[in-house]
């Protein structure tokens, strides 16, 4: 009887909790993958944190935009292992009612870091790599989610083979590049203006301003004239004064002629 009563009460409570009943874990699947089959002492390899997101929902880039929270990762690595900074792929932009701009990912994203194994031949096998991942997944509502993901890899002297190559290539290619590589011919950045010259046609050129607690970006405008893109923006400190962007790197995203999403790092300049 108490069981049925509890069921009845639970059923009554459902309408109130509809929004919270979906948890962020069911909407986002997190996995940890490596680009190698084994770990060689002293060598580096890449690991990917892949999030598969329920259609129509999104998760956020390092700068989430007007609202939202970036995906956050805390590594839990065996002693002696080090991780590089996490790379976030070039995001997409979504505009919600009220002109609320967000930057992030739909459907799938993989963040990549380089892990370096310690030198020495007494590594315990298998090696367990693990990370705590937290995200906010939003559609009409936002739901926080988290997961601890892990990967076991054998420690090996020399028989490491590449793994998950296609996946790593797809997402490595989508990481914003700091070099001027085709189809980019030239990049210039002066206070409030970014100019890009291209060697082939590109579409959907967008500017993704860097995450900052102190600087607000507004009036972002992208003009395309043939194979030249001119992006203008306003960067202000919270007190309304022009801001210096030294150390704040933005990203310009675009779709190349083969229909792939790509990105370029735009180093911040002094205001």
């Amino acid at each position, binding site marked *: 009887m108490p069981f049925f009563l509890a069921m009845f009460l639970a059923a009554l409570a459902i309408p109130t909790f509809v929004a919270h009943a979906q948890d962020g874990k069911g909407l986002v699947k997190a996995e940890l993958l490596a680009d190698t089959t084994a770990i060689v002492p002293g060598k580096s390899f890449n690991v990917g944190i892949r999030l598969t997101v329920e259609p129509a929902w999104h998760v956020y880039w390092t700068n989430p935009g007007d*609202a939202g929270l970036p995906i956050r990762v805390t590594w839990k690595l065996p002693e002696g292992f080090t991780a590089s900074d996490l790379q976030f792929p070039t995001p997409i932009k979504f505009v919600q009612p009220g002109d*609320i701009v967000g930057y992030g990912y739909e459907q799938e994203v993989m963040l990549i870091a380089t892990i370096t194994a310690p030198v020495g031949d007494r590594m315990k096998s298998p090696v367990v790599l693990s990370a705590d991942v937290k995200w906010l997944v939003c559609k009409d509502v936002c739901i926080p989610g988290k997961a601890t993901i892990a990967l076991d890899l054998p420690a090996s002297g020399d028989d490491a083979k590449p793994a998950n190559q296609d996946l790593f290539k797809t997402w490595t290619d989508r990481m914003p590049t700091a070099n001027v590589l085709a189809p980019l011919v030239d990049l210039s950045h002066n206070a409030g203006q970014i100019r890009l010259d291209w060697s082939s046609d590109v579409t959907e050129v967008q500017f993704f301003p860097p995450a900052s607690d102190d600087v607000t970006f507004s009036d972002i405008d992208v003009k395309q004239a043939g194979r030249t893109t001119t992006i203008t923006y306003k960067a202000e400190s919270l*007190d309304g004064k022009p801001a210096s962007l030294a150390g704040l790197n933005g990203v310009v995203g675009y779709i190349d002629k083969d229909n792939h999403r790509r990105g370029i790092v735009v180093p911040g300049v002094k205001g």
Partner: protein
Amino acid sequence: MFKTGLFALALMATASFTGFASAEAKVGEAAPAFSLQDQDGKAVSLDEHKGKVVVLEWFNEECPFVVKHYKTGNMNALAAKYAEKDVVWIAVNSSNFTTNDKNKAIAEKWSIKHPILNDANGATGKAYDAKTTPDMFIINKDGKVAYKGAIDSIKDSDSESIAKATNYVAKALDEVLADTAVSQAETKPYGCSVKYK
């Protein structure tokens, strides 16, 4: 008649929208006026609280960042603490799906004593340029915006973050009440996007 009514409504909506478009709430400037219904259907305006310090809290009961501050009792405790110092605390719900009844139900469920205003058409939210929940504003006794931004310093929806965070609103309120300059008058808000229609 029905059609005319709709047309008039549309006109009114356009008029109020364009009227507010340039009136974004800026620190040091007059706070945009509003008159909206609370959860009991009673009109609440900024005008009626002239001469008092007013806190506006952008609200959406489905937003985990708002939930965090209510389920821990933090928001009600802040409102109660400053009510003793004659500060008026007002929540504004600019979600497109909000109704007085929903606000009443959530006020009862979460023991909220302060008004939750129904801004379903979003005009007041846009006048303040509120983008997230909970976006916070403090209006001083002269009716000017004294603080706008985040509630606290840790951008997280986890309850544990509250104790570790600096509460910007409490800090600014203490300064406003002490008639000293607000040391941090603007911060970047964080949270869910306001669910405008």
